[in-house]
């Protein structure tokens, strides 16, 4: 029953229960001499215990304060909203097959204007009805893997996603699209880049910065871009499709290991770091921006390596950082530490002992830069040279986040320290670029 009251608590819940009213019913609330009539609306996330939300006849919601003298009467039963979906779109048999996997972060949804509830559209027919353009690009098979906010995705979920994608690929699809919340989308992209090797078809991650219920949402445009890439792109890599600019004009395709969320709210939040995006999609046309990519080849055999080991930490150095933070990781059984150092790859001298301890305890310690852009070089200053001497492994121009994911993945494959070190320095999924150009900032 409590779910019927969608979030109401305390005084408000008591009053509603007493009136035997349910969400969607028409009720009258009388406070002293003032009476309000309207539809009982579920409490919003911000709601408090002393207000009941009513939808007035005019369509507006208001919060009515509940006091001990408040009277609530149910004056009408709520009509259940009926949704008549548009006729099913015909799948065009000649079109390439694309599998869409939802992990959360709704890429399509519809609004129940009666109660204000936003419901995700997840099935293929839902997607077609909300984004009808999809039917002209591909035959879609939509599946829900989980419904998680992206901040709740862990390495265990990466494993599940990778295994699920692998299953789709053996099913003769031309490409896979994964819908995912944007906050940790970059990490998942990197994880899949290592877990899904030797891909025959593209695997495209997609998200949206403006929720799908609003007419201005970037979700549909991003999804169309992602499905286009999955269906037709000439490359077979893990990549991410999002807005290139604040305009709805073009979708940039970023390589999974080189992409980072760089803005809290803008549509073009994802940027390729230290490289250019691999492709751009405009008006459903794909333009490759690099010649350096793995070509699509349906005969290629996928190598699935989905294991990750979470005993890896990403530690950002800052002035005044207490080196016991590093010691804590040693004591707690961590196998690897990625340092986010300053500038070209430095940490202060007062951390050296802790780092030495870590290395002596057979913990992998590797260096990246907190500058976001650029390549580290630990040969320029003393401090860098000292760190190298301590056994810290320099990681070129890799993103700190990608380095962390990669090290988790490596420990998922092997615990042989020499092998780990070798893999860490090997360019497995284009996580390192050999050369950086001036426009790639």
């Amino acid at each position, binding site marked *: 029953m409590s779910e019927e009251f969608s979030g109401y608590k305390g005084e408000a819940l008591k009053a509603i229960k007493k009136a035997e009213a349910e969400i969607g019913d028409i009720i009258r609330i009388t406070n002293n001499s*003032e009476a*309000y009539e309207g539809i009982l*609306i579920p409490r*919003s*996330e*911000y*709601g408090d215990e002393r*207000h009941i*939300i009513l939808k*007035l006849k*005019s*369509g*507006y*919601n*208001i*919060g*009515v*304060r509940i006091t001990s003298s408040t009277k609530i009467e149910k004056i009408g039963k709520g009509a259940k*909203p*009926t*949704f*008549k*979906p*548009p006729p099913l779109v015909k799948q065009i048999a000649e079109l390439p097959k694309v599998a869409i996997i939802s992990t959360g972060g709704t890429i399509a*949804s*519809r*609004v*129940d*204007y*009666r109660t*204000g*509830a*936003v*419901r995700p559209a997840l099935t293929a027919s839902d997607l077609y*009805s*909300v984004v009808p353009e999809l039917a002209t690009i591909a035959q879609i098979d939509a599946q829900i893997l989980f419904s998680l906010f992206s901040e709740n995705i862990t390495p265990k979920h990466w494993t599940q996603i990778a295994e699920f994608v692998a299953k789709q690929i053996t099913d003769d699809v031309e490409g896979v699209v994964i819908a995912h919340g944007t906050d940790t989308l970059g990490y998942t992209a990197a994880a899949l880049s290592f877990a899904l090797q030797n891909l025959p078809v593209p695997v495209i991650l997609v998200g949206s910065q*403006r929720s*799908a*219920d*609003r*007419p*201005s*949402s970037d979700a*549909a*445009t991003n999804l169309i871009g992602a499905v286009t890439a999955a269906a037709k792109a000439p490359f077979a890599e893990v990549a991410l499709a999002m807005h290139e*600019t*604040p*305009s*709805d*004009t073009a979708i940039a395709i970023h390589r999974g290991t080189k992409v980072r969320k760089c803005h*809290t*709210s*803008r*549509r073009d939040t994802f940027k390729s770091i230290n490289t250019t995006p691999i492709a751009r999609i405009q008006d459903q046309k794909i333009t490759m921006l690099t010649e350096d990519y793995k070509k699509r080849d349906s005969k290629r055999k996928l190598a699935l390596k989905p294991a990750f080991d979470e005993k890896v930490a990403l530690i950002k150095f800052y002035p005044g950082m207490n080196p016991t933070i590093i010691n804590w990781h040693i004591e707690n059984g961590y196998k690897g530490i990625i340092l986010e150092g300053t500038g070209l790859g430095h940490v202060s001298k007062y951390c050296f002992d802790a780092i030495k301890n870590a290395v002596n305890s057979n913990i992998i310690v590797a260096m990246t830069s907190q500058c976001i852009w650029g390549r580290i070089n630990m040969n320029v200053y003393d401090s860098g040279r000292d760190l190298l001497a301590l056994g810290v492994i320099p990681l070129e121009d890799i993103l700190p986040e990608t380095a962390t994911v990669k090290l988790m993945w490596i420990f998922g494959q092997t615990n042989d320290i020499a092998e780990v070190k070798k893999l860490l320095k090997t360019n497995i999924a284009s996580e390192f670029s050999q050369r950086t150009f001036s426009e790639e900032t």
Partner: protein
Amino acid sequence: MEIDYKTLGLKVGLEIHQQLDTSAKLFCNCKPELFKEEPEITFLRRLRPTQSELGQIDPAAYFEFQKGTKILYEANRTTSCLVEMDEEPPHPLNMEAVEIALTAALMMKAKPIDQIHIMRKTVIDGSNTTGFQRTCVIALKGQIKVGEKTIPIEHISLEEDAARKTGEDENNIIRYRIDRLGIPLIEIATAPVINSPKEAGEAALAIGTILRATGKVKRGLGTIRQDINISIPNGALIEIKGLQELELLPLVVEYEVQRQLNLIKISEELKKNRAKETEIKEEFFDVTNIFKQTKCKVIRKALDKNQQVLAVKLPRFKGFLKRELMPNFRLGTEIADRARFWGKVGGIFHTDEMPAYGITAEEVEQLKKNLNAEENDAIVFVADTLENAKDALKAVVARAREAIKGVPEETRAPNPEGTTSYMRPRPGAARMYPETDIPPTQITEEYIKKIRQFLPELPEQKFERLIKEYKLNQKLARQILDSEYSELFETIVKEISVSPTTVAAFLTETLKALRRDGIEADKVSDNQIREIFKSVGNGELMKEAVQDVFIWLSKHEDATLKEAITELGLTTISEDEVKTIVEKVITENKGLIQERRENSFGVLMGIIMKSSRGKINPALASKILKERLEELLK
């Protein structure tokens, strides 16, 4: 013919939108101003109609979307940030705006609600970057007095103003400027109980006066906009959106009643003629061949672009298309508006107005023959691309069918003469859902108590005070109260010693007359008006020259008052110089003064005025001369 509106059953409701004069926008910290310069930032968007659980989609919006309409937004850094671009979530509700809205609400005896919930009202014509307008109810159940009648105020809301349309390019791109987006608007909605055009005007004026009494609303054209809901029995509920000129309101209501009455009459006659909806078919004839040699420029141009002429038959409609609905507005005009909206065509031709526009009687005959038209049928034709022409004629057919039924429900836009044109179909039920990015705002009793304590004086109290304090007559007091200048008036007469009646008359009657003559009075700032009267007060400017100076300033926007006075050759001689001249004239006419004593004043004034060729302020000169003579003759 005088219409008895009450017997007719006219019902009018008003929704008045007024921009508030806050220091920042409603949901961000941008300046609530417009910019004239070229935009610094542009971006291109599409808005996608979202489906409601009820499966409702705004038909006009969906149509635009299917046509692939894109919106090019223009912005600059002073007036918009990422919030207006829909690239950042809204900031919390601007409490300065809430306070102004609550002040107005309390002045209308409305009941503030306990907790404000922001709603998203779906609007996907491009005027909102988000695809919805943020709006919230602040208070309910107020009232205003119009004469002896009490008009209930249903609700008072606060909402963000929309972006303003700056153009429409080819290739389906509409341009909007987002400077106006997010400026706080108060919306006052009356119950539909207004029964005559006159009463509508009075109700709007009463609401406007209360809003201005808060002292915190913007002024000038475009800062106040009214939506009018009009219905008569057997007619339809028509919404007229965005009327900016208050003076036009009674006329707009009058014309709308006329239009509905005429449409009802046409419908009755069509039925009598046995016109049937089912007989109007979406059967379009390609009649391009008939016009191969045409002298009609519009068709010629279309054919040169390889476009088509498409025609449709309206059985038993002959003569009806030229029937007038409002002054200079026929049923044909109404149908053409629909064709323009849905087909994006320039216009339509119909046989009721033929032969004309270079189309010959032979061509019309040929047309009738091709379409197999009977004597009492009308034919509508249009020259454009096949797609546009088809869409246009579909709209023509739909509108003609509605003419048989009566008055179609729709949203209309006002024209400068008071008539209205088709704007779009009426959107379905208000599609509002909660704005989840902004927490609800509590309105506590203490907060209301505080606002109530500092409530501005009510218009009627102010009216009495204006008469008592400034000795204005009733008419002038009423005029200044109803004008936008009542505050400025008081500022001026409090700080400058000029006749309040002069200032009041200028701010009301004179400005009204100037506006009527096409002078853009809003281009002169309050400060400039104050300066003008300051100059009058200290004798630098003559009362009679105020109007000329004002007109000059309205035409030279960035110029100063000094420049106006110099340019107009109105420089008066300063008080010190006047004193010197008076002294000189006295010395030169000692004998005369001895002889005629006080009676020499007239002659001396004549000499003084002549010597300065009118550049002396006579009031000032006369004052100084009088003082000096009195001294001398003591």
